[in-house]
């Protein structure tokens, strides 16, 4: 069976993605910092779906380990999903470089480091799919979360460039731009129900987009138009808004 590598497998979104792909009979490689926390998920996937699942130590900010991490996987995954991200605390990050750099490194630099290695392998072998979970927050910088947003903007641009480069190698890149998702990352926020997706719904949409080789996926779909409007607001007006 082909396998799926989930980078940042501890999140709610990753759990939903792992179950969706496992239900479609993919083997699952779970990668994350806290490997013991991933063990129950491994067992769950094996019992529920009768597939092979494995756990691997991965730290997005430990760039030097990325090459050996990838080479030591039991097999080259047919699909790599880059799920990890760090919302961080915008106000804290404005004054505290440690927080700011953690946001940038997790959401951008770390993702680039590992995907550079994987995309190289995929280009050489002439197949593979890379799915990057970015965010609508990267579409335009806003005062409430522009550190997270700018890192995700960088990641979105990276994915688009990667798609362009890998197209001729038969490697597909899917950029996913979720809006609000009801996960632990957003547990402390009060989210508008109509614009908030459940992780299972996001995973289903991503699987469908993967099957149909879609390039850019907004979930929920409303966000495509919301962000279009937000992007159209002239900067002279935008800078006065409190968003």
């Amino acid at each position, binding site marked *: 069976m082909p396998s799926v590598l989930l980078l940042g497998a*501890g999140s*709610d979104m990753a*759990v939903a993605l792992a179950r969706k792909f496992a239900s479609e009979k993919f083997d699952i490689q779970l990668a994350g910092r*806290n490997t013991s*926390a991933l063990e*129950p*998920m491994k*067992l*769950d996937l094996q*019992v*529920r779906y009768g597939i092979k699942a494995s756990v691997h130590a991965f730290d997005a900010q430990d760039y030097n380990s990325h090459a050996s991490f990838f080479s030591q996987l039991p097999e080259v995954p047919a699909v790599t999903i880059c799920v990890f991200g760090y919302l961080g605390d915008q106000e804290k990050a404005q004054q505290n470089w440690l927080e700011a750099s953690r946001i940038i490194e997790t959401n951008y630099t770390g993702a680039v480091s590992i995907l550079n290695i994987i995309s190289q392998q995929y280009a050489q072998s002439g197949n593979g799919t890379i799915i990057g979970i970015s965010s609508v927050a990267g579409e335009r910088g806003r005062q409430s979360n522009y550190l997270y947003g700018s890192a995700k903007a960088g990641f979105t641009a990276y994915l688009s460039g990667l798609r362009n480069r890998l197209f001729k190698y038969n490697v597909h890149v899917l950029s996913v731009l979720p809006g609000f998702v009801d996960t*632990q990352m957003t*547990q*402390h*926020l*009060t989210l508008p129900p109509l614009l908030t997706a459940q992780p299972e719904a996001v995973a289903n949409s991503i699987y469908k987009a993967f099957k149909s080789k879609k390039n850019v996926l907004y979930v929920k779909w409303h966000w495509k138009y919301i962000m279009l409007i937000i992007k159209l607001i002239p900067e002279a007006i935008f800078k006065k808004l409190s968003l």
Partner: protein
Amino acid sequence: MQKRLSNWGNYPVITSEENAFTQEEQLRQYVVANSSIIARGNGRCYGDASLGKNNISMLKYDKVLAFDIQNGILDVQAGVTLDQLLEIIVPKGWFLPVTPGTKYITVGGAVASDVHGKNHHVDGTFSNHVIDMDVLIADGTTVCCSPTQHTNLFQATAGGMGLTGIITRVKFTLKKISTAYIRQTQYKAANLDEVLQLFDTYKHYTYSMAWIDCLQTGNSFGRSILIVGEHAQPEELTAQQQKAPLTIPAKRKLVVPFNLPSFVLNKLTVKAFNALYYGKNYKKEMHKVIPYEPFFYPLDAILHWNRGYGKAGFVQYQFVLSLDQKEGLVAIMKRISEKGWGSFLTVLKVFGKQDSLISFPMEGYTLAMDFPVRKGLFEFLDELDEIVLQYGGRLYLSKDARMQQQIFWKSYPNAQAFADIVKQYNPDARFESLQSERLLLTK
């Protein structure tokens, strides 16, 4: 995060804090740092048992840790729901040892309410099949308990409504089946005496319950349909079904999309429903082989059926009386029939022996019915409580949203022993719910 929360009866509705977790360590930190915590599963208890100040949603703690297919043993995190487990175990020839009338409950909830099913007279309650379980208690430690290990914690957690701590993991045994079908027989009973007679005649059946029409009087008082069943054997299936005896065809679910106006259910419509339902069984005795879903979970086929009772919500009233108190059963049913507020979903069941600290069942008759919330209802139910108490019965805490505390303390013979164990593991009411505050169980 602040959320509007209510359980299945849509009464009461509160705005309160609800948080989820995926790692035991997160839960431990939360428990140590907060108070007035109550675990909350899928919100299918009817009343206020899983509503409190700090609600901990268990739904993301839902990993299946092991499934021993040879011996039929499951080991799961407590937030997994029975419907997910059925999808895993039925195709492998196993079934839940005990299941209530909905599969949309968590395993933790099944233990905390110590749920019973149509097979109570044969297999007891859910906790009778638990091998061991982990409970995270007030000081943040996780204690593994079983019928032989930390016995008092085990006893007070089974049916303990989440007050000893948070059930995090449960290991339990399953029931072997050879098909996903049930051989069902329905018997029409003209009145209460006849249905009780039928219960006795067919007590060798694994599963039994009766729909009872609470609005009839005179000779038809308590007319009912007794439904009994056994897991079907392969040779009882059609040739088509025999090809895949452990899989059942998928069915579309109906959804009640919004709260119906409360006038939809009144004495006339309920009477009409009951007449249709009773009349549908035109023969005295009907046999058929059906998939397990409509047998165990007829109402799960209509998602959000609770909205049928309107915005004000409803309470379910379930009591039990011992076998020698048939007179009491008649007295209560008469009172309900006179009032004419009864629901169309009235279920009668005869429980078998039950030996437990605080679980609801006892050998005898249990009757469950819905009452839409309306003016005067709670006064009326207080009246019924007095009659239940007078005949030595008690009410099911999982259905309760309104019982007065003295009724609980007088009707549960082990109430004090239970409260003492709760105090041992939960000394400062770190775990408490609206229900435990109302019943003065954690004060």
